[in-house]
């Protein structure tokens, strides 16, 4: 295993500690619940936004905590849903008078932990709503058969509700916005290599030297099919061919286009894919209004990429354009 790691059991807490040490003024780390939260949360003039999932998808979600995005993220261990108690205690710590919005990528484990936590939090008198993200068009049923999976498109939901909550929107309003963004967001990914969880120490699946997994999940779940590795051009055609007709996105639409790296693919290749996708969309009459190229939702060290489209309207565009300050940053 080629990783920077001490005892694999401490992989997640040691990473979280690093995030906290790198952002001492803006973030707080609560080790008991794997919680990274805004230092100034909860603020009672805004709804608190919380996301959790397994770890291994960084920068999602622990590195998108900050002004304009999440108020807190409480991940589980690598590829494991957070224990219900983490979610419950996070909701309590971030309880705001305006409420708490729980964002959940649609997997059975996450769904059950968050729903149970929400039930308990409500029983304790908290105002809580839960919103599921399920943008992956690859397979109808996720690993745990609860419908489509939530993948890189979650960035857009987090960004939109984060911006709106910063502007003072109510919990109901945030649910409306989040559901709307989710409903116009579609993603599909391709893996060139498997990923290696630190505790396992070996690749999660096998992929021959000349193979790719089309429609792969961010936990290495099988996708639509395994195929011979083809050119970047053909790959973009395949991704667009799955994503565009699904909503569908049509001529005249303005979209956000994201090329998301799955962890092991360099940004040079992501920009190459971006350029191809941008031009192929233009040829279909679809205009890219906002572009996102880089790592947003990864699968550890997996080489691969996903393509996400979001149908833009003025409301969504304004929310995506609003400023944000998160741990994942260049400067």
């Amino acid at each position, binding site marked *: 295993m080629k990783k920077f790691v001490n005892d694999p059991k401490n992989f997640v807490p040691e990473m979280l500690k690093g995030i906290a040490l790198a952002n001492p003024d803006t973030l707080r780390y609560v080790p008991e619940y794997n919680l990274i939260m805004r230092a100034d949360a909860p603020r009672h003039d805004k709804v608190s936004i919380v996301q959790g999932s397994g770890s291994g998808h960084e920068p999602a979600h622990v590195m998108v905590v900050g002004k304009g995005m999440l108020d807190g993220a409480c991940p589980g261990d690598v590829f*494991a*849903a957070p*224990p*219900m*108690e983490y979610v419950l205690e996070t909701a309590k710590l971030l309880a705001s008078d305006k409420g708490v919005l729980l964002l959940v990528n649609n997997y059975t484990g996450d769904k*059950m932990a968050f*729903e*149970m936590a929400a039930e308990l939090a409500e029983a304790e008198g908290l105002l809580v709503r839960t919103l599921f993200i399920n943008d992956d068009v690859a397979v109808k049923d996720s690993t745990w*058969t609860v419908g489509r999976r939530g993948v890189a498109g979650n960035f857009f939901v987090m960004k939109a509700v984060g911006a709106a909550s910063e502007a003072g929107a109510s919990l109901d309003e945030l649910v409306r916005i989040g559901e709307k963004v989710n409903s116009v967001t579609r993603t599909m990914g391709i893996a060139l290599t498997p990923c290696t969880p630190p505790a396992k120490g070996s690749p999660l699946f096998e992929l021959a030297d000349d193979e790719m997994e089309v429609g792969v999940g961010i936990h290495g779940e099988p996708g639509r099919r395994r195929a011979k590795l083809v050119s970047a051009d053909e790959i973009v055609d395949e991704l667009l061919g799955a994503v565009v007709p699904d909503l569908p996105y049509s001529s005249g639409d303005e979209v956000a286009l994201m090329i998301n790296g799955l962890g092991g693919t360099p940004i040079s290749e992501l920009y190459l894919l971006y350029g191809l996708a941008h031009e192929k969309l233009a040829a279909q009459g679809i205009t890219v209004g906002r572009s996102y190229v880089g790592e947003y939702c990864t699968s550890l060290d997996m080489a691969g990429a996903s393509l996400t489209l979001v149908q833009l309207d003025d409301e969504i565009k304004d929310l995506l354009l609003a400023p944000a300050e998160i741990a994942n940053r260049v400067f």
Partner: protein
Amino acid sequence: MSDARVESVVRTITTTCIENETYFGDLDSVVGDGDFGFSLARGFENVLAQWDTFDRSDTGTFLQKVAVVMSGRIGGTSGPIWGTAFLRAASQVKGTQEVRGTDVVAMLRAAIEGIKARGGADLGEKTLLDALAPMTDTIERELAAGTSPADIAKAAAATARDAAEATRPMQARRGRASYTGERSIGSLDPGAVAVAVLAERVADTW
């Protein structure tokens, strides 16, 4: 005060799940991912560790604390499934000190509905529901027939065991075992077996 018999049954479930870690894990290794024994054992170890600290002002409160502690720290399916079962059972006896036979049936029905709601499963999908539901039917029937509590426990255990055996020809539609598709036919469902084992221990220690 919480009901002493309920406490005793919970205690039996707790120790039995801890003792059967390996057995339950092995059952889940046949067509699942082998973590069932581990999950239950860790969850109930936490219950055991905090046993003396639970709020016992009434039975509902006691069961709610058990639910949160049991399911709070474990991942996967069993934490939320079992936690929800305890939670919904608790809601039936909120404020109740002494639990009667009809309460038990209401608690089990609520637990079953909770599990269905949480995990989306229905009867016949090779889950613990396939043992829990027939067992509850038996208890209700025997209660109506005026059978003694100890004998009801025995009848419940027998039904649960038969029902667990009856999961063998079913195909798993939920949880990790469902990935194996038709290969899941021919083996017992670990969750249903666990219900049988627990019911037997409860009857034995009545």
